[in-house]
């Protein structure tokens, strides 16, 4: 029974990892590649480690496998966040041509206009009519 369960977990995990690898190759820009690598890759590796935890009856092995799963699930979002943020900050981030909305540059524009002028943020012609921008512009009172 545990062998069948472990086999199913192994196959599912390897499949998810392969999907993650396909996504890393095929996706058109960096955030999409990170999206594929982080989520599907973490789930695939976690499933294979879970198969280890299931297959060995030893509690020590199970605890180590579960600790590795917990560590992967905690660190994968952090590392993806660090890399994405660093790419955006360094100016190396080129988004896909079909990108509809870029919240990061919008938020940075709002923050910069708040910091430089006490006036409400000027409406960027590209973003005119964007409801969240209007909300953000009239948000809290400008600091002195």
């Amino acid at each position, binding site marked *: 029974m545990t062998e069948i369960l472990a086999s*199913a977990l192994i196959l599912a995990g390897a499949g998810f990892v392969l999907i993650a690898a396909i996504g890393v*190759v095929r996706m058109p820009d960096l955030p999409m590649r990170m999206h594929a690598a982080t989520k599907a890759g973490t789930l695939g590796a976690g499933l294979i480690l879970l198969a280890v935890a299931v297959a060995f009856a030893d509690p020590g092995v199970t605890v180590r496998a579960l600790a590795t799963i917990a560590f992967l699930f905690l660190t994968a979002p952090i590392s993806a966040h660090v890399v994405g943020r660093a790419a955006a900050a360094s100016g190396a981030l080129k988004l896909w041509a079909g990108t509809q909305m870029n919240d990061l540059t919008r938020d940075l524009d709002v923050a910069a206009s708040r910091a430089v002028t006490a006036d409400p943020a000027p409406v960027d012609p590209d973003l005119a009519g964007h409801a969240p921008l209007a909300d953000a512009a009239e948000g809290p009172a400008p600091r002195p």
Partner: protein
Amino acid sequence: MLSLLPWPALVAFVLLGLAFVLVFIRLVRGPSLPDRVVALDMVAFLAVATIALWTLVTGVTAYLDAALVLALIAFLATVAFGRFIEETPVAPPADVPSAAPDPTRDP
């Protein structure tokens, strides 16, 4: 360790090998440094998965410690690469003339 494992483990090893090949394609081609860092992170994930699978096939549980340590080191490496990317601007802002032109870049 497990009598039933051979063929699912074999299939999983083949899938993991394919994944390694695909991620290495991205590692070689990746147009920018962050792409390569993502590919390296993915290689570390794949290595952890492969070590876990190898633990299962051989029954030697000491390999699991290697997987745990590799996950830790991969995380530290990715964070360090993130700091490195953040502190090396790729394109200087257009309105600020750079005082010292970058020798590696066209003037």
